[in-house]
């Protein structure tokens, strides 16, 4: 408070009575000093202060709950502490771009292969050619130059309320645009990477016109039921606010694990003969181009793709492990039996901009 008081004093005296110029300069100098003293202490605790090798910074676009237990297991095994910055995937990539070579991040984890490929194109990642990594994950789930590797698989599912809908009511995703679902479906918002990736696949398979008509129908049918989180969509379906929702499959299983009696079911669309197949995506990890702790960072990647790490993804999150020798949760339909959409993950990046233009043109929120 003395700082404020002395400054008030200077304000009053300076302007009402115009003291000697040197006296004024002195006061202005003192003010600058006060400000500096107020700001500087916080300038100290920053990422640069903690540059030891047994310490990693991970930018993660996944919900913290879905990744933290696995990072904790890594710390227990190796003693390497992981600082986690959880936020939106696209947001984190923007941040990496803005931070450039000064980024504190060693690794980037995302919920979408298209975003990782985009980060690779932007020069934010560097290849990881350790044999442990390359051998563990099949080639269709990693970048051509191994700048990123997939960690777990998921597919677009339709979650339905079992009291409102029969599983036979819907065969293809495109059916969601039909007028009979008016105000009865819940969809993710336009900023969610999995919607963008899904629309990219639809565009590649069906072309612009059909995709646009589908999105317009989806927008009409969803009305105000546009959500930021998949868990909210499942919740809206479970409570009967809507009949159907579009989510990643594991959110349905997670919900059922927490509330076994919830009236929700899972439907995999486009599995019929001649159908497009399910939209598949992976979560993945990449080593940042400017990391100064590449060795520790690679140890984390190796751990995540190892059988032990992969089993955690399968058990904790109900996702599909990508390591061929790790089995998925028995409740899930076997990955091999799924008909999947014929669009390679690496293509998601180039399709992203036109898909986002489509989303924007239809005015999806």
């Amino acid at each position, binding site marked *: 408070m003395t*700082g404020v008081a002395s400054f008030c004093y200077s304000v*009053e005296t300076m302007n009402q009575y115009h003291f000697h110029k040197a006296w004024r300069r002195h006061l202005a100098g003192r003010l600058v000093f006060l*400000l500096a003293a107020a700001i500087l202490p916080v300038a100290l605790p920053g990422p640069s202060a903690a540059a030891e090798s047994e310490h990693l910074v991970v930018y993660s676009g996944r919900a913290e709950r879905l990744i933290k237990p696995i990072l904790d297991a890594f710390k227990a095994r190796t003693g390497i502490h992981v600082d986690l910055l959880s936020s939106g995937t696209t947001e984190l990539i923007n941040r990496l771009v803005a931070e450039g070579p000064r980024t504190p991040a060693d690794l980037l984890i995302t919920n979408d292969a298209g975003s990782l490929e985009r980060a690779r194109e932007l020069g934010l990642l560097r290849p990881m050619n350790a044999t442990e990594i390359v051998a563990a994950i099949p080639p269709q789930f990693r970048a051509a130059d191994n700048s990123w590797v997939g960690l777990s698989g998921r597919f677009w599912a339709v979650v339905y309320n079992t009291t409102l809908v029969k599983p036979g009511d819907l065969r293809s995703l495109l059916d969601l645009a039909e007028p009979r679902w008016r105000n009865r479906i819940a969809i993710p918002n336009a900023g969610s990477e999995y919607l963008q990736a899904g629309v990219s696949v639809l565009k590649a398979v069906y072309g612009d016109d059909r995709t646009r008509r589908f999105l317009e129908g989806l927008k009409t049918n969803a009305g105000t039921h546009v959500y930021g989180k998949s868990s909210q969509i499942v919740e809206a379906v479970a409570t009967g606010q809507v009949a159907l929702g579009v989510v990643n499959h594991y959110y349905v299983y997670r919900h059922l694990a927490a509330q076994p009696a919830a009236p929700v079911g899972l439907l995999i669309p486009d599995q019929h003969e001649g159908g497009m197949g399910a939209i598949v995506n992976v979560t993945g990890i990449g080593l940042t181009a400017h990391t100064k702790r590449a060795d520790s960072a690679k140890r984390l990647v190796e751990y995540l793709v190892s059988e032990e790490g992969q089993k955690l993804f399968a058990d904790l999150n109900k996702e599909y492990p990508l390591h061929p020798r790790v089995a998925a949760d028995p409740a899930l339909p076997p990955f091999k039996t799924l008909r999947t959409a014929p669009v390679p993950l690496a293509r998601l990046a180039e399709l992203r901009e036109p898909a986002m233009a489509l989303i924007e043109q239809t005015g999806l929120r």
Partner: protein
Amino acid sequence: MPHVLTVRPAFPDSLTIFAATVAGLLCLPPAYVAYLALTADPAAWSRLWTTRIPELLTNTTVLAFSVTVGTLCLGVSLAWLVSRRDFPGRRIWEWALVLPLAIPTYVLAYIYSYLLGAGGPIEALWQWFAGPDAHLPSPHSFAGATLVMTLDTFPFVYLLARAAFLNLNVSYEEVARTCGASRAETLWRVTLPLMRPAIVAGLSLVILYVVADFGAVSLLRYQTLTYAVYQQLTGRYDTTAASILSLLLVMVALIFLVTERWFRHRSRFFQTTGRYRTPPRRRFGSLGAALATLYAAGVFTVSFGIPALLLVRWSVTAVSAGVVDSRFFGFVGNSVLLSGLAATVGVLLGIPLAYLATRRPSRTNMLCLQAAYAGYVLPGPVAALALLAIVSHFAPFWYGTAAVLVIAYVVHFLPAGLQSLEPALQQVTPNLEEASRSLGYGPAATLRRVTLPLVRGGFTAAWVLMFLQSMKELPATLLLRPVGFDTLAVRIWLEASEEYYQLAAPAALLLVIMTLPAILLLLAKDWRAA
């Protein structure tokens, strides 16, 4: 020490230069955003005009209008009740009605989306009453956003109106009564018009708060400009659309600000002293007292009582599940450190701006003050992105540090402080200081014995308001937080956005509890002025 009395300096003095520099720095982030928006591809503009902008503009202004009406009714009526009438328990309600300020909009929003949501307790009650197929209108709507924002922001109007009721020179009212005006007529034609500057100041604070709010509208999924900016920013790789929408947002806010300035400029009052005596409080009859208590208690219950109880209940569950650990207390320290610094820096920077605009309202000085207001309505996410770009360009060694976050808070919340600093300085007529000087007090004694006692309340209020708002700030904190420097607000958001209400509750409750002492400071005994 020789001193010369000059009428007007030939050159701008150091204070004016300092104020102009501060105003210039505060304008940098909005200027950067405007630059981005104006250099954007015209196709992006036309695409947004045809798809999103009409809906967003309508939603934003309609929400601002409805919350203004709601807070005006609640704030002024409650302020009148506690400052001009007497009934049992009045003193309790007088301070209790400020407590909703301690609940951030996103916390109130998640509590109400649980309470009023499908399958929530109020719907269950309604179904028990009206049959199993009865449903309530969803809180994820315009009505829900209006309710939450009104309950959360009416204390701004209440506080300023209450201070005005208490500080008003009762002689005006007595004269009106002597001249034959009835009590209602006096209130309507004398008291309320005299309070206009305070009420308008409160309402413009509310409007700016609503327009810039991210927490409530995002959780209630009501599409406003600020929410759309955040969605565009976090969902896209380029900032074009976000900056276009931000520019519109700044325009909307400027319209409100100019209106407010115009209002206040037209009605500037000087009082010769703080006041002559406490305005008399009339006692209610028993029915009146019961109704007044019911009204005050009802508003308090829905805006603070029930939310606080729910937070406590959820927190108990969460604590017994082991959610509160040493990591949790680290977040507490971060929140206090950041907000305290931001409030202190904000007051130090705000004083010269408010002082110059009040005492020497030259074109330059008024422009500096107006410039400082732009930051409040610059949505958190865009202020954050603009700051990141500016800092990485000019001060890379500050990059990723908490200092950037403090700067963002100051840019964002200085207007909240100015709203208090300005009226406080307006209350001191220059004549008083001149009289004090001519009667023999030196500048120091004049400051200590005359000026400071008159402005202390306003300065305290400014610091507290900025501290509270920094503690609650969400979008800029999300975007600017250094690694491992999460605040309570960020923790709440991480849990609540997944609808893990119980996991979010301890941080939310703590945020409320930590904000309470600051509010008690607001209500300290000698604190009378707004």
